[in-house]
């Protein structure tokens, strides 16, 4: 039995480290240009190099997304960019534009080429096309079910990657320009404004007249919005499908999200791999996932269900998040049992906080005293990014995370 790669998003260097420490075999990230998340959560070349150095320690791989559909001017500097990636030890690029593929094959031969889900590859013949073109991996469309994926992996030569968790496009990826037409922002060059999650009034034309469709529940307006993918219940099916790499979506998501989701799938994959015959899903993992969940989730496409069950019709601007991410441990002094923490969300004396780290470590602690940087007592950690110190009941370490149950 082949153990699939667990591939996680890295929105910045800190998230890259968290993703790898919490169990990812590989991470994907975007550079300053050419990738599908413009402006935010992107790495400079220097940061990518640092990320690659860090990944090496853990024997993890780094892939860089250059997955826009390029317009004429988006080729400026691309050659140098992929040559630099090759030089600093990036394993491969995730790409959809054929021009980018051709250039990379010519000038940076050692970079692996992974065809992005933006190409919406839905069948074996299209995979064969890309194999003949000399690519190393195809990321399949998020419209396929386990049976279709298995048919493809059973019959293709190169690697297949599949999304297992996170937000999905409600259209075939790459085949949507709602954003372009509604806001002038190019969805296929990183400008997507998620118009598919907006609300619309359904109308119909009858005898030349346009009228609203009469609704039984006028509070639920039309939306194309699709629930996030979540496949924790399908680990045996995932193994059975023969997938080479399992991808978690979310370069825009928080530290807490990345660490929590990666850690859960890491455990589930390892548990199944080590003892497939007696594998039962640990329900604690399901609970753990819930702690980072920000939207409705559904297994949807992978089981071939595209019904309303997989859609979201109420706009959930404030989803009922169970847990709030409070901070990250910067260092821990074993002698004094003092942890130095960088605050990310409000917490105060009296709160019950949950601390968790890579592997299985996790515990709750009631907070009696909070110290500031100068070790003076304070009541609240109420400034973003402020440094506080806590006396710990259990050992923690740098890169542990802190969260609080919402009440």
């Amino acid at each position, binding site marked *: 039995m082949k153990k699939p790669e667990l591939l996680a998003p890295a929105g910045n260097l800190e998230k890259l480290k968290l993703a790898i420490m919490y169990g990812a075999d590989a991470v994907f990230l975007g550079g300053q240009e050419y990738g599908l998340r413009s402006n935010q959560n992107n790495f400079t070349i220097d940061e990518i190099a640092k990320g690659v150095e860090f990944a090496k320690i853990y024997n993890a791989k780094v892939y860089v997304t250059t997955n826009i559909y390029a*317009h004429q001017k988006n080729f400026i500097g691309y050659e140098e960019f992929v040559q630099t990636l090759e030089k600093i030890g990036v394993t491969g690029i995730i790409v959809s534009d054929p021009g*980018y593929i051709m250039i990379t094959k010519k000038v940076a031969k050692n970079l692996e080429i992974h065809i992005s889900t933006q190409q919406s590859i839905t069948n*074996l013949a299209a995979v064969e096309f890309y194999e003949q073109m000399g690519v190393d991996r195809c990321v399949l469309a998020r*419209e396929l079910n386990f049976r279709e994926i298995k048919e493809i992996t059973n019959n293709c030569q190169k690697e297949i990657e599949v999304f297992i968790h996170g937000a999905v496009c409600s259209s075939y990826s*790459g*085949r949507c320009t709602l954003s372009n037409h509604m806001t002038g922002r190019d969805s296929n060059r990183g400008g997507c404004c998620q118009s598919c999650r907006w609300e619309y009034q359904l*109308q119909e*034309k009858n005898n*030349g007249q346009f009228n609203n469709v009469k609704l039984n529940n006028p509070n639920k307006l039309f939306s194309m919005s699709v629930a996030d993918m979540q496949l924790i219940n399908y680990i045996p099916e995932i193994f059975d499908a023969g997938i080479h790499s399992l991808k978690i979506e979310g370069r825009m998501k928080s530290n807490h999200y990345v660490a929590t989701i990666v850690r859960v799938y890491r455990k589930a994959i390892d548990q199944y791999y080590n003892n497939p015959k007696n594998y039962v899903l640990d329900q604690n993992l399901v609970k753990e996932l819930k702690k980072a969940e920000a939207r409705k989730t559904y297994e949807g496409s992978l089981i071939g269900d*595209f019904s309303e069950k997989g859609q979201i019709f109420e706009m959930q601007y404030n989803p009922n998040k169970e847990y709030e991410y409070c901070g990250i441990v910067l260092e821990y002094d074993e002698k004094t049992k003092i942890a130095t923490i960088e605050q990310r969300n409000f917490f105060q004396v009296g709160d019950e906080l949950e601390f968790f780290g890579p592997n299985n470590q996790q515990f709750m602690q009631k907070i009696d005293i909070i110290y500031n940087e100068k070790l003076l007592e304070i009541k609240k950690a109420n400034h973003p990014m402020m440094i506080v110190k806590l006396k710990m009941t259990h050992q923690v370490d740098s890169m542990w995370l802190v969260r609080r149950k919402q009440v």
Partner: protein
Amino acid sequence: MIKLSVTPFSIKQAISFNENKLVTNLIIGSKEFGLRQVTLFDLEMIKELKKVTKKKIFVCVNKLMHQSDLFNLEQYLIALDNLDIEGVIFADLAVRQIVKKNFLNLKLMYNTETTITNQYFTKFAKEAQIDYIELAKEITLNEVMEIANNKDCGISVNLHGYIYMYQSVRNLVTNYLNIQGLKKNDNQKYLYDDERDALYPIVEDNQGTHILASNDLCMINKLEQILSDKIDFYKLDGFLYEEKEYEQIVELYSQAIKDIENNEYNAKEYLQKIKKVAQHKKYNTGFYFKETIY
């Protein structure tokens, strides 16, 4: 010479284009694999059409193919090849793969609607033995011309018709009506966007859901800027028009192109004329003169 690709609604309408020398290509929707087409023709109808026209017939097989389609697709493409038509228009590279594997004579025209946005695509197409590509509607006219001037394969651009925005595998209208406890009827549906006061046509078929822009593309008053002998084909698409309206649209573009050749072109007049043809339509020039940001 300017060559127009048109989308006949019927065999009768196709015959009516016989005398129009500007019209060189008939684009026909495949009943089995065509999406967003005015009419879906089965193989028998295509055979009939072939008998009554000397124009080149391209059959549109632009569905995204799933595993279960592949076998039927192969049989279908072989059957099409036997009809001796010019070629196929496709959105999924599976079509290219099957055509080449079976050494079929069908010419290949790649049209993904949204992703063909630069001149490297023409190099890629040449290497992949794809004969034509249709450029995305999201690039500017300057970019179109740059691509045309540096092309390595044939290119087709759009002059008139619906603007694609979105395709989902999901039946979004049915799903929505289900949560409302309502039954679907045959009336054409639209999504109303109150922030933009825009109405987007939404069409559900057995392949899922399609959403179109609120304005159709119309270049009848910009023809001098877009017509070039570097561009192989210009498309006039009739999807969501009436057959009569479409006939007039083809006629107006044909006259306008002749007027340009005779230095008699009055752009404003043509725009006014075309607005009268289908009064329910709103027109703009898409992204030809408008850069997107990102």
